[in-house]
């Protein structure tokens, strides 16, 4: 089992939390659960309600929309935020392609932290803008 201290040190390397202070990360770690998923297991399914944000700590996953793989995710990538920001069914299915470890933030705490820790919101906006600019497809999920 990962201790909070270990989670904090692993979150430090994640892009979404890059602008957070150590104290911010302790707060994020307080509300984050870790989850291990076997390779081949679905993490989110297209059409389901979104209830969490996932951050890939290790391993890899693919993003499939209507049966077509549209992206591959690795350590540091995160997904699921759009369904929380704009409540709507998941737009894609994410499947672990190898044994994968995830940090999970539920919808309630995601919204609370977005309000209380501005660096997370700012990073999220920057990433969204970047993705819009790059692909015109803001979020695969």
């Amino acid at each position, binding site marked *: 089992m990962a201790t909070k201290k270990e989670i904090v040190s692993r979150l430090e390397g994640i892009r979404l939390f890059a602008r957070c202070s150590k104290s911010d990360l302790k707060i994020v770690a307080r509300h984050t659960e870790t989850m291990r998923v076997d390779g081949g297991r*679905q993490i989110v399914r297209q059409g389901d309600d979104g209830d969490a944000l996932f951050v890939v700590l290790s391993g890899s996953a693919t993003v499939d929309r209507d049966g077509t793989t549209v992206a591959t995710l690795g350590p540091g990538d995160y997904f699921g935020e759009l369904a929380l920001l704009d409540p709507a069914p998941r737009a894609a299915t994410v499947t672990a392609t190898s044994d994968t470890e995830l940090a999970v933030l539920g919808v309630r705490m995601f919204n609370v932290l977005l309000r209380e820790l501005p660096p997370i919101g700012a990073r999220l906006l920057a990433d969204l803008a970047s993705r819009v600019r790059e692909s015109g497809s803001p979020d695969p999920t």
Partner: protein
Amino acid sequence: MLSALARLASSHHRRVLLGALVLVPVLAIFGGGVEEELSVGGFVVGGSESARGDEVLEDVFGAGTADWVAVLSLRDGFVRDDEIAAAGVEYTEAVAADPGVTEALSHWTLGEFLPNERSPLESLDGRHAVVAVSLAGDEDVQRATAERLEEFLEPTDLWTAAATGPSEISRQARERAERDLQRSELIAAPLTLIALLAVFRGLRPAVLPLAVAVFAVLGTFTVLTLLAQVTTVSVFALNLTTGLGLGLSIDYCLLMVARFREELARGRTVERAIAHTVQTAGRTVLYSGATVAASLTALLVFPVAYLRSFAYAGAAVVLVACSAAVVVLPALLSWLGERVGVRATEPATSFWGRQAQRVIRRPAWWAIGVALVLIVAGLPFLRLDASRIDDRVLPADNPARVATDQLREEFAFRNFNGLGVVALGADPADEDGLRELTSRILELDHVSRVDTPTGFYYESGLTGTPRAFNERFRNDAGVWVQVISSWEPDDPRTEELVRSLRDLESPFPGIELLVTGAPASVMDSVDAVQSRLPAALLIIAVITLLVLFLMTGSVVVPFKAVVLNVLSLTATFGALVWVFQDGNLSGLLDFTATGQVDVFTPILMFCIAFGLSMDYEVFLLSRIKEEYDITGDNDHAIVAGIGSTGRVVTAAAVLLAIVFLAIATSGVAVVKMFGVGLTIAVIVDAFLVRATLTPALMKMAGRANWWAPRPLRRFHLRWGLWENEPVALPEPADEPELARTTTETED
């Protein structure tokens, strides 16, 4: 922790239920005989002047106040007739021979009286006599003695007899209250069951609160049984246990079942619905329980075993009910699954959701209007005159009440409530000191007579001849005198006299004077409660503020919660003063108003009402906060929170009101007050405070509801009471279950 409990309930519900089934008879065995272990007393203020004085009177002088009084009404003849006098002496000696009797006095044993001299123990018409009996030991021992003395109430050829006195009144009140409570349970049980069926909409869910209540009550009985081995626990703690136990069980079950049904209606599996229910509603139950249990421990500041017992029972019943609600109830829900019913109510369109919308359209109107009603209802509380119970708590036809009325009409009643001034260690031969003490007492206002070792001294200047009886006022260990007030024991002027006596300078160098007697003891009780009440209330307020801050992260909402609780309870107590102290509606409710309110009963009521009221507040706040956290929309959060919990709160209040109204049918005035007061409390709180004032004030405060200084906000984020929502992966569709591990982190 909660996610582990949820997993336990889902995966091993049969084992949990089996464990529960084994535990119930064990608790029944350990806790079933609790009543035998508890004390009927516990009202004496430990270490108070009156308590110390009483102890000296009993232990050193073998005397004391008249705890048990037999009123003998002659069939024929007069008290001073020879034949009657001989029988009277024999009767008095027989009573005095009981091992529990310290002293028995009657007209016949006081010594010779002149034909024109009035004896205090003979009626004005000479046709009734009393035997005034001091009993040894604490209230429990005295009650047992009073039971034995019943044999002396058999009618004879010469007289009929009836008993009164504090011990007898307390015994009669207790017995009558027990009978009435059994009757009220017979009335309330079927009505409550029907209401539970209506509220829970089905037989299976309707029995869930009863299952939790069984645990709460039996578990608390076991705790009290154990505690009684090491300290005094009042038998009245059982009333708190059953009242609060049933109330909280209904509250917790309503909340958990409503959430479980809601989760099922969202299409979640039973397992996920249990997980969400335990981690949301279960968390709310624990926060509420923690607040109420911690707050009730504030009663430990009172130096009165009776009140401390409420702290033990209150904290125990809340903790056991909470535990049953998050362990046994989820297992039951898991076992029942969808048989518990799948119902979804759109919060915004539910009755209470629409009510909340009405309120937030005109919040100021609602806030001012309802607050004014509550403040006006609470105004009589300012006139509260706290005292202790007397015979008038009993119905007018109760034998002890009839006997006391006889004392009032046929005798000089105040003679039976003399004040003792005890000088332990004073030289019994110090005639000068005694004379000085007597003269200082006679100089005080409101003194009718002083009985001393050297005779009887009257306010008028007359002096009564000393008799053998007067020797009871001294022995080698010291002296004491008895002071008879010019006024009845509950008259404020008698209270003034007690204070004047306590201000007297002792004429015996280095010897402290202890003032005791029934009126002094009442004053000590009232003073002990009143002097420590601010500290108790402060502790309760601080604990409430702290827990609510840890729950909400706001410094505004907890203050609002405390203010609303105070407003709600003040209105209840105001109504009680208006009815039970002032005597309004006494005809309708069939009781005798004394112009005073028992000092201890409102505290018992406060504990229960505060517990329930805080429960409702936490239910509402928790749901409103959850909605606000997700949406950041204050108005939406208020409507959704009240829309989804309003029914729970009002249904719980109605169910409890049925139970409390049944209790209010009791013939004992304090029990009636308890029932009426709690009915008002839950109805006012659920319908007026939570459904109108809470949304109105939260609307007016807007985003400020959730304000806290930044350091405190961050503290709350890091250390506050949070529970992460359960997140589960999609169930594999047409493929075998793959190994999956959900890992909780640890510090």
